[in-house]
């Protein structure tokens, strides 16, 4: 992806210089290889700090909500990976961002890496990861290691939606077109095959780790309420902490319900969770149910599509069927 990085810096510099855009929303290098930070660049000389590498998993589309609202002049150039463009379209559909203020460069991606997965493999004190195609060379304080690239992919990349950009003004891509990822409903099927007691135990174990830091909610492009009910002191549901083990489940389940039909499965919730809770499984369960009850639907595939949950057709599943399924 170093090639893409070079091309992006060159092109973004041109677009800044000719006035097409006045700022660039991209990724900034950190102290290490994995700690890239989403950042705005306002001049061509700042772009030397622009990073585009294997740890740029963050989905930048949500930052456009605030960026479109501020009073700064000119267009915002944003770097979007193929999967990020689904969130972008969904935000357009929900009128949360202004297409006229945005210039999208679609950036090619061969799958982003997950530092947490590398650590879980037992690598300690990682100081550098060199991407050699199918293999990673891992430099650590305690010696050099290797692992397969495929084993270190972010969950969202394991289940890659494909290399097509669903929105762009131009595309910079030199990667070979890759295969679509693994079946994203495999994990859901595992849960569905459990007994309700087993499933409850699974979620209890996972969700009891929750520290209510709200990282999942704040990073989620579908969570764009001006004031979240869980932050609103007069809602009766506000909470800075899980008062008991029921409440942490309520928070996550309500959030999953609220984004159902709008969640593009961008996977940011699971990526940022400091406790590694597989929150994407809740969303994917809803997506799978919607697919089965109303026909295949992918949020963010196109702008302005009517999601099954806010649309009515005579072919809709009867409420009784939905009800029965709920009693499974």
């Amino acid at each position, binding site marked *: 992806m170093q090639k893409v990085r070079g091309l992006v810096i060159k092109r973004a510099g041109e677009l800044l210089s000719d006035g097409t855009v006045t700022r660039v929303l991209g990724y900034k290098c*950190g*102290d*290490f290889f*994995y*700690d*890239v*930070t*989403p*950042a*705005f660049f306002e001049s061509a000389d700042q772009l030397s700090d622009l990073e585009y590498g294997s740890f740029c998993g*963050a989905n930048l589309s949500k*930052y456009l909500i605030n960026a479109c609202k501020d009073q700064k002049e000119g267009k915002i150039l944003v770097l979007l990976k193929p999967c990020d463009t689904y969130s972008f379209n969904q935000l357009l559909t929900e009128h949360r961002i202004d297409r006229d203020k945005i210039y999208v460069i679609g950036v090619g991606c061969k799958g982003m890496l997950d530092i947490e997965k590398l650590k*879980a493999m037992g690598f*300690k*004190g*990682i*100081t550098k990861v060199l991407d050699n195609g199918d293999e990673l060379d891992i430099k*650590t*304080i*305690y010696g050099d290691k290797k692992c397969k690239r495929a084993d270190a992919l972010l969950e969202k990349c394991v289940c890659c939606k494909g290399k097509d950009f669903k929105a762009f003004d131009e595309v910079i891509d030199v990667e070979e077109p890759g295969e679509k990822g693994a079946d994203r409903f495999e994990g859901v099927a595992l849960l569905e095959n459990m007994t309700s007691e087993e499933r409850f135990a699974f979620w209890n*174990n*996972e969700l*009891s*780790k929750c*520290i*209510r*830091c*709200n*990282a999942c*909610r*704040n*990073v989620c492009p579908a969570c764009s309420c001006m004031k979240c009910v869980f*932050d609103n*002191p007069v809602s*009766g549901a506000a909470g*800075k*902490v*899980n*008062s008991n083990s029921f409440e942490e489940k309520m928070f996550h389940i309500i959030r999953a319900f609220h984004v159902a039909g709008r969640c593009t499965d961008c996977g940011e919730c699971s*990526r*940022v969770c*400091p*406790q*590694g*809770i597989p929150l994407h499984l809740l969303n994917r369960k809803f997506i799978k149910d919607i697919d089965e009850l109303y026909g295949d639907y992918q949020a963010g595939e196109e702008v302005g599509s009517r999601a099954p949950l806010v649309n009515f057709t005579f072919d809709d599943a009867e409420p009784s069927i939905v009800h029965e399924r709920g009693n499974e």
Partner: protein
Amino acid sequence: MYTIEKSKLSDLFGAISASCELYLPVKKAGQNNFTKYEAGTEYCDELKTVKSPKDMFFPQSENIVSFEKTDGKIKVTPDTIPTEKTVVFGVRACDVASFDVLDRVFLSEPADSFYKARRENCTVVATACSEPEESCFCSVFGIDPSEPKADVATWFVGEKLYWKALTEKGEELTKAVASVLTEENADGTVEAEKAKIKEIVKNLPLASLSLDGWDGDATEAKFDAPEWEKLSASCLGCGACTFVCPTCQCYDIRDYDTGHGIQRYRCWDSCMYNDFTMMAHGTPRPSQLQRFRQRFMHKLVYFPANNDGMYSCVGCGRCVNKCPISMNIAKVIKAFGGDKS
């Protein structure tokens, strides 16, 4: 000095938990957190827990008083001060140092009675960091991870755990579990381990951070600095950094309507949240820039100003690992020029 075979750790934990509650790092659903010991619980030797052990003394949420209305009268019941004796095992040197920071806040007069009781009832068993990681920078704050200053210091070397009591409380615990420990003159082994750790720490990538310019008198120089805008620009305003931080100590007090009364509780707050320090007139920090700045100014300027120069960061590096956008105190210090390398 005492030792115990690593393979017999469960004997040690059994002996400790016979007379008190034992908390130690345990892996559950893939994550390492301090957890109450029960027979069969396995110690996790990973360097860092996700949450720090500050919950031991300052739990994320605790009830403080309840109000109940019966027969036209209001009954006020303060929650009782905890009396359980506890031991926390496997605390790293940075986290031990974080207790000194928390003590400054909660034990200064008027002392916080809940915190004080938990602190006094707890014996801290620290473990030296045999393999520090790239995100560690405790040495910048003068902390030595080879020699944690707790009630008991321990070192894992080879197949053994080396145990040394450092305080009266530590001596007492050692006596209580003496039956499973072996007395051994192992100073040479432990000294060699310490030297090995010190060498690693010296060469860690963040060891060159410099705190020059950060002290109790830096408010004017730092408060309006242009750096804050860029640093805070992509902050999500979540509380991940504050909730994994061992020294963040801000809390909120809330009332929960139980339907027949009120349960008043205290819970961790985060300066990153938009209702932080909300007052009748509104919030004094309406922008994320202001809230972001507060966190770092508090740790590196306001806290030292009020606490004899003590910083309220211990360089544990949890924020380096856990911030969703990888913005952290090390980057803040560097952005202001604080790097000696």
